[in-house]
């Protein structure tokens, strides 16, 4: 019994110690950014041969590590499914969530999060077998639809079928792998998800050529990194780390030419490189934080092309994700 008393006292003392410093201080102390990703989604976050992580979201995590710790390798990746992700961020198990998460009002408010930016403008689409002979989503009345649970996808598909006066049978699983396995086994006629994911999932199918993604996009899915509410410094760091990558692309700075641009006279470029202004200090970071991000990870365009672009198995063109100067939506507020 005395042992138990001691134990409970020890537990009390332990819980009492967990003081809350800012996320930046916690990360600097730990020397690593804990980053929540999917881990099984080609193009976004995937473990490739050799155990390396690869993808747009993964590069988002690396950029944070480069900005805060000066080393893009100092990331601890945490694989999370769609059900676990929010609790992991709320509880502080991870410092930032970069897991193809759609920005919605509820998530931004009542869940206690802040969305940092949009690292991929997506929309929901449908994939079907070619031999089904379906050419449009309007022909899907009565179809069985495979969905990943706990996503905005699930809500969109309900809204869409209702608004078109069509019926469907929902077949939902909590992991993307089971969704794909069941679709492949013929449990459902249609697989629905964000269009980018459909292309990614299709690369995993054995008979890739027999599946098509229907042309209709039924929703807006702005995907982006998420941080906890109430830590404005960390929020700003995340936002401007991402912005620096977009601004760099706009200014023509890439990971390859960045060192040669150090002698540039262009004040815009000099500010991004940290040679002028107090951008880094304002965030509580080193002056060269954006330099490290671009040098080690690359600008937004490089990251896009490397992971999901037309030369990857996903073959996605920039579309909405082109810079605003090229007809897309990617736009960084002024870096000054």
């Amino acid at each position: 019994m005395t042992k138990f008393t001691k134990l409970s006292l020890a537990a009390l003392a332990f819980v009492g110690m967990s003081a809350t410093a800012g996320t930046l201080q916690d990360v600097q102390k730990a020397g690593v950014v804990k980053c929540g990703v999917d881990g099984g989604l080609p193009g976004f976050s995937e473990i490739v041969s050799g155990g390396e992580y690869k993808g747009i979201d993964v590069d988002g995590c690396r950029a944070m590590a480069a900005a805060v710790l000066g080393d893009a390798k100092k990331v601890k990746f945490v694989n999370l499914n769609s059900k676990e992700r929010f609790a992991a961020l709320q509880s502080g198990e991870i410092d930032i969530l970069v897991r193809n998460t759609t920005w919605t009002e509820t998530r931004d408010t009542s869940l206690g999060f802040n969305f940092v930016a949009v690292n991929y403008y997506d929309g929901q689409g449908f994939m079907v077998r070619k031999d089904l002979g379906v050419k449009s989503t309007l022909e899907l009345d009565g179809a069985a639809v495979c969905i990943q649970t706990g996503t905005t996808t699930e809500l969109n598909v309900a809204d869409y079928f209702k608004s078109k006066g069509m019926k469907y049978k929902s077949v939902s699983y909590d992991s993307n792998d089971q969704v794909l396995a069941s679709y492949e086994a013929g449990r459902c006629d249609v697989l629905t998800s964000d269009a980018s994911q459909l292309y990614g999932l299709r690369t995993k199918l054995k008979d890739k050529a027999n599946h098509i993604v229907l042309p209709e996009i039924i929703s807006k899915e702005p995907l982006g990194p998420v941080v906890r509410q109430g830590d404005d410094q960390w929020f700003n760091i995340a936002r401007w780390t991402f912005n620096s990558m977009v601004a760099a692309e706009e200014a023509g700075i890439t990971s390859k030419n960045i060192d040669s641009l150090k002698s540039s006279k262009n004040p815009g470029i000099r500010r991004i490189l940290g040679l002028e202004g107090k951008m880094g200090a304002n965030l509580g970071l080193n002056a060269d934080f954006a330099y490290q991000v671009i040098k080690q990870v690359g600008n937004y365009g490089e990251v896009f092309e490397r992971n999901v672009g037309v030369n990857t198995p996903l073959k996605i063109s920039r579309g909405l994700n082109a810079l605003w100067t090229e007809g897309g939506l990617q736009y960084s507020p002024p870096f000054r």
Partner: protein
Amino acid sequence: MMRALRNQKIRGMLFQVLTILGLVAFLWYIGSNTMANIEQRGIKSGFDFLSGTAGFEIDEAPIKFSSSDTHGRVFLVGLINTLIITFIGIIFSTILGLIIGVFRLSNNWLIKKLAAAYIDIFRNIPILLQILFWYNVVLRALPSPKQSINFLDSIFMNNRGLYLPIPDLNTTTISVCISVLVVVVGAFFLNKWANKRQEETGKDFPVLLTSLGALIIIPIITYFISGANFNFDYPALKGFNFRGGKVISPEFLALTFALVIYTATFIAEAVRSGIEAVSKGQKEAAASIGLSSYQSLKLVVLPQAIRIAIPPVINQYLNLAKNSSLAAAVGYPEIVTVFAGISLNQTGQAIEILAITMLVYLTISLIVSAILNWFNHKMKIKER
């Protein structure tokens, strides 16, 4: 003061009080810390979300459900599905467990070994793996809707589920259902009467044969009297899938199958140990007063074996109820899948939803265990 501390009784009491105080302080600290953190991070809390619109569809809802219903109704759908799977699982695993348990003690070498092999294999593989295995086997083994396995153009089986015709609710259907019920209740009273008569006069009455005969003949007679008008709603292939009739989904089939196969092994072992625990002398005594081996099993061995087997079987029923939560892996819409899964994700209120879900399992388990404890009490040897 020091003297009082040396008194073992007082000292014991003091430590107990301290422990309880420590525990209360610990729980209070955790509780208030959680609340403070929730508030600080601006996370919404409370139970308002239950009346919010769900916005998603549930395929296998036992009650009417559409995407404009509330999260409260999602809870209800999940709860009913959990109860359905638990109820059906308990019935089938009991039947299978009894059969396998008796087989295990059979004198036939092959039957005995097969039963032992079955128990050893399925008892020792984690239930989650079995569920996933059966699910993926079911999905891959069955054909697509257009190539359905077809029984007499009325029952269809494909990778979307098992499609059965259902009779319309008319006078014939209802009368036949009632007649079956009457026969079952009648058999119960017949058994009581036969037992009493046997005790008084020693004459035996073939209760089982009579009841089974009545169960076949009486509904058939009722069918013709009430107009011979069975009207089935047959499933038929329309568009992508079958429509009409009743569909049992592959998720439900795989989950029930896995739970029954798994739980039955434990019940079989409980039955076997119960029978083996009845001393040999009892059987010999039964034989010596001239009871047949069937009578000896029914009148002497089983009543004693059941008493021993009930407590472990109760545990297995409770395990089955709890294991049904693994349905989340295959997406059968029971409470963990839809409420602690989808609703949790859409509203983000993890603490509230998980607390409600835990409370549900606790309540189900306590009710099942209360019923069976009552039964156990009733079956106990009445000592005077």
